[in-house]
């Protein structure tokens, strides 16, 4: 192979003027983490609402939440991102659209909102499965005790359902982190975009991608480990969840 390896590249000054190539990766990682964290919070909130709606007795609630899930699940994330970024500002009233287009950090806000909606469907489907996995008697028992539907959900069904779906939620959280990389198509300077920029500036392709790969691997291990700890700390004694 006539590829010139140069692992020292990360300590060289980057052509951006401030800091080294390594600093570029660090800022990329920061954007990845911030975007993923914001999107994940949004996904949890929206996903919980929609997931609960899908299990309510009301036919209207089931239909609305069902349509929501089908729409966000059957369009590729990249296309959804383009809709949020390029199409939405044009369809809004002119003054709103102009405000959106002039927003500072628009790629961040777009990826945050777009990814939040996209992942909320996954959360919703997991939560629905979790609620349906509970014995039917639990809902009936709650209602028979005189709890309202809202109380039955918040005191009886949801606390157990969330515990059951913690393992699949972990992989959805990992997916959220990985999917932030799609944001580079609209100019989000996250980790993959930074690795790509290093390649363009220095031609050291494989060093840059190896570094990004290692960072993603460590991030994965760390998140998996922390979620295990969470699983263990919230486990109900005598009740086997997940495993």
């Amino acid at each position, binding site marked *: *192979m*006539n*590829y010139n390896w140069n692992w020292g590249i990360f300590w060289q000054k980057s052509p951006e003027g401030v800091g080294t190539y390594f600093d570029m990766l660090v800022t990329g990682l920061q954007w990845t983490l911030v975007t993923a964290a914001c999107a994940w919070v949004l996904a949890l909130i929206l996903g919980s609402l929609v997931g609960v709606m899908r299990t309510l007795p009301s036919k209207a609630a089931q239909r609305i939440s069902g349509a929501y899930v*089908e*729409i966000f*699940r*059957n*369009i*590729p*994330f*990249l*296309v*959804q991102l*383009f*809709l949020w970024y*390029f*199409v939405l500002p*044009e*369809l809004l009233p002119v003054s709103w659209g102009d405000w959106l287009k002039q927003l500072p950090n628009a790629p961040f806000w777009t990826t945050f909102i777009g990814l939040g909606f996209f992942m909320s469907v996954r959360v919703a489907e997991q939560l629905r499965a979790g609620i349906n996995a509970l014995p039917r008697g639990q809902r009936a028992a709650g209602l028979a005790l005189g709890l309202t539907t809202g109380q039955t959900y918040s005191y009886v069904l949801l606390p157990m359902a969330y515990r059951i779906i913690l393992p699949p939620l972990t992989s959805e959280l*990992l997916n959220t982190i*990985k*999917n*932030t*990389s*799609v944001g*580079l*198509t609209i100019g989000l300077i996250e980790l*993959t975009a930074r*690795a*790509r920029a290093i*390649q363009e500036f220095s031609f050291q*392709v*494989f060093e840059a*991608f190896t570094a*990004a*790969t290692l960072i*993603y*691997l460590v991030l*994965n291990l760390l998140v998996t480990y922390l979620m295990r700890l969470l699983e263990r700390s919230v486990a109900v004694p005598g009740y086997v969840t997940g495993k």
Partner: protein
Amino acid sequence: MFADFDFDIILRTLPYLFFEGMKFTLMLTALATAGGILLGTILALMRLGSIPVLPKIAAGYVNLMRSLPLVLVIFWFYFLVPYLGQWATGASRPMQVGAFASCLITFTLFEAAYFSEIMRAGIQSISKGQVGAGYALGLTYRQVMGYIVLPQAFRNMAPVLLTQTIVLFQDTSLVYVLSVTDFLGAASKVAQRDGRLVEMYLFAAVVYFAFSFTASMLVKRLQKRIAIIR
């Protein structure tokens, strides 16, 4: 708000969008699914087999692929494949690899990790007694897997494999990062050439939705039919 829409542009570029773009997307999906299932099955067999080291290699590969974003993997192979080709053929310069071949290699290798997890679950869903019975009849490992375990595993996992194929179909839109003319790439090129982003991206979303939604409805029906037979 739809007043200054130019729906005509969609009609005018329809042949380009479908015969160039969608053809690329569908061919990539079909070939990568076939290759991914084949390689994924081999990985699953390696992982569940008793030959030392192989399970570790297979597990390492699957976990590595599953912890990386697809966009990064696409970039990796885009730059790596020419060097791998040079190494394999012993040429003096990195090999020229076309966009389609590069994408196909990427998606086959990447999706194989996901297909292998599905096939592993499928193989493990077959009771141990069946394998034992096969060996007791004097069948070899190859025969036990080929005639008893894998046919049933494929059948049990058919809906999940097809759902993963729909995911793969949607994922192929990410080849956009290589400026390849897949369906989204074609729509995007027209959109940027004529300044018609709204029409083209909305149309692309509708088409992707129609394809994926129809396919997932068919998978649901298949799932019901399989469930009744068993």
